[in-house]
């Protein structure tokens, strides 16, 4: 039976395998943005799936994506604590540019690698907000639940992250042009 009613509640909960099929690409992408390293991302996702599978029977089935990302983030933090290793992130100095020409170029020429590199240069809290809301399309409520923070906090992180990103992309294009 592909779906079951969970412990008499009215929420029908899919099988865990079905959830893995649906959510795995998202978890992997979020893990890569979080760890900035594909090997570490794979480790974190693997452990996340293991922990989620173990507690699937106790999970109420609501907001599964937020729940999985919450496990993923906690696992990432746990691994950092264990290895006393922080991802090396340096935020380059960014400049706000006024010339209209840069923005015309951005619209036409930005390549995906430059955009991802700019996202990866954001501090972790902003990077995660942008990755969840603007890449993965989570609502602000879902992202707030996944990160265990208030909606006000996700709003401010998202806005700050977008503004930094906007400035970084302008800066990247100005270097290409000159």
């Amino acid at each position, binding site marked *: 039976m592909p779906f079951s009613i969970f412990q008499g509640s009215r929420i029908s909960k899919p099988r865990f395998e079905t959830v893995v099929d649906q959510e795995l690409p998202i978890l992997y992408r979020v893990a890569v943005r979080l760890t900035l390293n594909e090997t570490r991302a794979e480790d974190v996702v693997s452990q996340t*799936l293991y922990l989620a599978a*173990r507690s699937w029977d106790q999970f109420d089935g609501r907001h599964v994506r937020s729940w999985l990302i919450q496990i993923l983030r906690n696992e990432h933090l746990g691994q950092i604590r264990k290895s006393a290793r922080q991802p090396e992130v340096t935020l380059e100095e960014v400049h706000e540019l*006024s010339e209209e020409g840069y923005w015309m170029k951005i619209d036409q020429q930005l390549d995906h690698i430059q955009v991802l590199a700019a996202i990866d240069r954001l501090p972790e809290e902003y990077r995660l907000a942008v990755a969840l809301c603007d890449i993965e399309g989570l609502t602000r409520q879902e992202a707030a639940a996944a990160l265990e923070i208030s909606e006000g906090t996700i709003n401010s992180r998202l806005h700050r992250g977008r503004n930094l990103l906007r400035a970084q992309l302008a800066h990247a294009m100005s270097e290409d042009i000159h």
Partner: protein
Amino acid sequence: MKLHEDTEGPPCSHMENLLHQAADGSAKGWKKWYALSHAGQCGRCGRFLDRLRMTLSAVQMSKPVPDPEALDRLKSGKWKEETKK
């Protein structure tokens, strides 16, 4: 008629949240109307909204495709044994 100078700069401080919501499509109803109306009248907010939309569009188009081999490995990982218990 433009009510503000058409110059580069931050958006009006009371508009920033609404402009973000207008840019990502989460503003609905009167909020959307108000944000777009203001951006249509105010040079700085209009430019901020245009560039934010451009940035978000670039971000959405850059959504990476995960390595299929990594996904295959993860699909057959140790979690499978937990689901059989």
